[in-house]
Every structure is written in C-alpha cells, then in structure tokens.
C-alpha cells in the first residue's frame, strides 16, 4: 500500500470517529478539492484560458468546502454568498499585483529541478501565477466565512429580537476572536512550506534585500498575504451579508404576521 493511501485511510477513520457523518463529508470535500485542483491544471495544460477555469473551479471548491462542512443551511448559504464577494474582490486585487510583482514561473533556485525541461510551452506563466494565487486563498476564505457565519447564526437564533446593526458589530467581534489564530495558521503554513527555501537562503547568505526581491520567496509570500487580506475582508463582508439577510427575514416575517 502506498503511504498516501495509508495516511488517507487513517485520516478518514479518525474523521469518522470524531465527527461521524460530518467526518465523512469533511474527507469528501478534501478529496473533491484535490480532484478539482488537479483537473484545473490539466485543463490549463490543454490551453483553456486559466482565469475563467479558475473562477469556475474556485466557485465549485468554495461551495463544496462550505456546504459539505456546514451544519446549518442558513449559515452555509450566508457563508457561501459572502465568500463569493470576497473571491471577486480578491481577484480584482490579485491581477494587478501579480502583474506588478512579477513572480510567475520559476526562479534561479529552481534551476536544478528544471534541467532538461522545455520552458517554452506557449502558456503565459503570469496567468498561471494569478490562478495559483486565487486557488490558494480559497481554503482560508471558506474557513473564515464559515466561522463568522456559524457564530452569528447562533447569536441570531438565541436572540431573535437582536437589531441587524448589532448583529454586524457582533460579527466584527467574532472576527477579532478568530483573527489571531487564523493569522497563525497562515503564517505557520508559510514557514513550514518554505522551510527548505529558507535553509537554502541561509546557506548562501542571502541578505534581507536579496530575500524580499527573490522570485520564489515572493511567490510564496504574496499568496499568504492574499489569503490574509481575504480573511480580513471576509469578516466585515460576512457580517454585513448576514445582518442584511437577517433584516430581510425579519421584515418578511413581520409583514406576514
């Protein structure tokens, strides 16, 4: 048995033991996410335009992650709508920044891995870099919007008389509670993911100036920055979406009653 299969089975068993049906769903969402991610790359290899593919796959991944791990339909819907807004805003940010920072393709540190390969493949790597950045932020957006949505939904259920405006303020304070740990999830992800790169930098005595201008470091770093910005803007956006939906539902039930 391969290591991936063995670890996968163990993760599945643990998820089921901890979460039952929800565990199965969490595992499925991971599996589907991988499938769609790889499928997106294969489509790009067939010269389909990267940005539209990324947008479609991105929406599918967000909906899978949110609806497969959501407990409450109402909260999941709010989280999904908010995450779409965040996705669009992030795309508007990512495209010009990627064009400005120019970290597409590969750096000199990659030379060994690229030996013997043809780099002239006729696909613009800047587009691939934009797609990569967008896809990398999806997990963080989904997680943050779910956390805010489920927190606020619980408050709304416990205090049905709450004012929509107060609900928005509560959303920001839920955000304040999650931001510290989310920031750590992202940055430890960066530290872990680029540990060998940093060891390389240390070995070759890169200066601070060398590092912040380095292409490979830049590519990893800006992805974390985009995820971080995604998480930050998710907080007010999700709170606003939920307080609006709550206000609408309230006025509907009042006009009925």
């Amino acid at each position, binding site marked *: 048995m391969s*290591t991936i299969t063995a670890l996968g089975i163990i*993760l599945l068993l643990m998820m089921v033991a901890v*979460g039952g049906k929800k*565990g199965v769903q*969490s595992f499925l969402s*991971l599996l589907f996410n991988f499938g769609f*991610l*790889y499928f997106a*790359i294969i489509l*790009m*290899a067939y010269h389909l335009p990267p940005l539209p593919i990324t947008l479609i796959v991105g929406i599918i991944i967000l909906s899978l*992650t949110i609806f497969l791990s959501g407990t409450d339909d109402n909260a999941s819907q709010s989280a999904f709508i908010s995450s779409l807004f965040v996705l669009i805003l992030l795309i508007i940010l990512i495209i010009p*920044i990627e064009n400005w*920072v*120019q*970290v*597409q*393709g590969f750096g*000199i540190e*990659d030379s060994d891995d690229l030996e013997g390969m*043809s*780099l*002239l*493949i*006729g*696909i613009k*790597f800047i587009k*691939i870099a934009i797609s990569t*950045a967008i*896809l*990398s932020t*999806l997990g963080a957006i*989904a997680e943050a919007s*779910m*956390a805010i949505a489920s927190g606020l939904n619980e408050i709304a259920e416990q205090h049905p008389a709450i004012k929509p405006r107060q609900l928005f303020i509560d959303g920001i304070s839920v*955000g*304040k509670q999650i931001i*510290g*740990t989310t*920031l*750590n*999830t*992202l*940055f*430890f*992800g960066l530290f872990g993911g680029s*540990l*060998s*790169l940093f*060891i*390389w*930098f240390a070995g070759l005595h890169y*200066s601070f100036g060398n590092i*912040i201008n380095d292409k490979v470091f830049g590519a990893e770093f*800006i*992805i*974390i920055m985009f*995820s*971080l910005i995604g998480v*930050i803007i998710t907080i007010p956006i999700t709170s606003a979406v939920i307080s609006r939906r709550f206000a609408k539902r309230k006025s509907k039930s009042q006009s009925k009653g």
Partner: protein
Amino acid sequence: MNEVIKKLPIKIIIGALVLGFIAIFGTSHDEFLYQQPIFKVESVHNGNRMKSSDEFHNADYQINQKLNGTIMNGKLKGKHLTINNTFSHSGAMDREYHVHNEAFISYHQHGQSTIKDYKRDVPIVFLVWLSISLLVIFLRMSGVSALLSIIVNSFLFYDSVLINYQTQGDQVLFLFGTLAIIFSAITLWLILGFSRQMLTTLCSTIAGTLVSIVVSLIVFTFTHEHGMYYESMQYVTQLPKPLFLSETLIGSLGAVMDESTDIISSLFALKSERPQISRKQIFLSGRQIGASIMGPLVNVLFFIFMGSTLPLALLFLKNGNSIGYSFSMNMSLGIVQSLISGIGIVAAVPLASLFASLFIKGGAKK
C-alpha cells in the same frame, strides 16, 4: 455595507494612507541601500519575434530587446548603459522589461552587462502595508496583537534556520520540534494571556502535533514510504526526510493551535455560562464544536501546501509526462503533508476536549 462605511475610523485611515505613501515612496527610492547595481530602464527597442517549437510541439516565441538606462546606485551611479534582454511569450524565467522598470544587474566593465533579476521590493512592501492597514482598520487592537505574534515568530523562525545552518542540519527535527513548542507557547501567550486556558490549549496543541508526527512515522515504517518521492522536494540542501517532517510539523502547528484554541475557548465560555455542566458533557460538546471546524481547517492547509506545486505540475504535463507521473513528482509530497496535518487537526479535537474537561476548574457548583 452602509454600516461598514459609517463605522470607518477616519483618523486611522488617514494615518494608514500617510504611512503607506511614505513606505511606497521610500521603497521606490531605496536603491542606495543595495550593494548590487540597480539599473533603471529609460527606453526600450524590441526586435522581431523568433518563433520556436520544442519536441512536444509547444509553440512559443522569443523577442530580443535592447534596454537603455542608467545605474541608480553605488560607485557607478549615473552611468548610462545598454543591456540586451531576451524574453519569451510564456515567461517562465524571463520577463519583458518596460520603461521605468528597475532590475538588479551584473556589471561588466569590458563587455556586456547582464540583467540578474527584477526589483520587486516595492510591491512586496505595498502588500504588507495593505494587510497591516486592513487589520488595524477593521480589528484594531486584536489586529495589532495578532501582528505582534507574527513578527516575534518570524524572528524566532529565522534564528532557528540560522542555527540549523550552523549545525549543518544534523538536528533539524529536534531543532524545529523545540521551536514548535516555543512558537506555541509565545503565540498562545500573546493571544490568550497567561492563564489556565492558555496552558490547556498549549497541551492540546503539542499533543495533537505529536500524534500526527508519530502516526506518520509509524505509517512510513509500514508502507516503506512507498509513493513518496523525496527527490522531488525542492531547494533541498540537507537530508530530505527529517527536513520534510520538520516542514510538516511547523506547517501544521498553526492549524492545530487554531483548532485547539477554538474548542477550548468555547468550552471555557460554556463552563462559565453553565457552571454545573459535567466533565463528560464538556468533552462531548468539545467534540461537536471540533467536528464542524476540522473540515475547513484541513482545507486551508491543503490549499497552501498544494498551491505552489501547480506551475511545476503544469510544466511537467507540457513536457510530455503522464498525468500520473506529473502528480507523483510534484504533488505527492504536498498531499502527504496535507494528510499528516489533517491527522494532527483531527487528533486535536478529542485531545482539546479531553484536556478541557480535565483542567477546567472545579466540579459542579453548589
């Protein structure tokens, strides 16, 4: 969105804009800080397209360009130069230069100077500024303290990398294992303050991470690491396996901490709301809270670990490799990392619930 606009703090925003302007203006004029000569392009002449095609029938083209410009720093400041640059349509390792672009060059007194790399500190500083401003505008002090823990951890991380270099990577797993404990302690102290809750969360974080590493080592032994291609690890300058485990350990630590913090803080809140709740009930509600957040968290790390593998996977596919081979050589290690982190995150659910049920003060109140 009206609420957002009304709540915006005008003073902080003006402050952020002023700081941003200073940071961007400063970084755009920071050439004097660099030792390497920096070249600013003033005019560009592009040659003709040279079409190319490789053995896999990938059609591309390349263009030679002549760049006229000036050196901006050092002893050669003010010197005019003409440099040749070749860029391709796909631009995997090259790029088209435009007027006003800046680049680091190798200067040769006799003969052609060459471009080394694009200067990208301005956009990096811009992104850092944007993130910090948004953090402070929306989240005020919580944003600042979160930021503080990142800064402290970054210094610790870089110091450990230097220690690893000085010890030639012999003790990499021990070193970063110790770092993981220090990281968790400092981060949780900054987020939660020193309290019973913080210690409980620390125990759960360390135990969860430990479980994931032990489980993966056991699995590695039984499967003989079949299907893991350490040779595909990038930027490796020392023994790959302990390095891989250290990467995974540090990478998953934040998420395990995230999961533990969420569960334990909810349980401490629950206990203070309903002091008569039993230990068993605490454990069960911890498991329920944990089960709903573990899925999204595993996905966060999955996308961070996998995202950066996409460009190389694409290059493999376009170089005539099969889908299976491209996967093995680029993505299998990322998947293993995601799975190990997943195991840590899921293990943290019962562990956090257990520690909370044991360590929360007092039994049922009279």
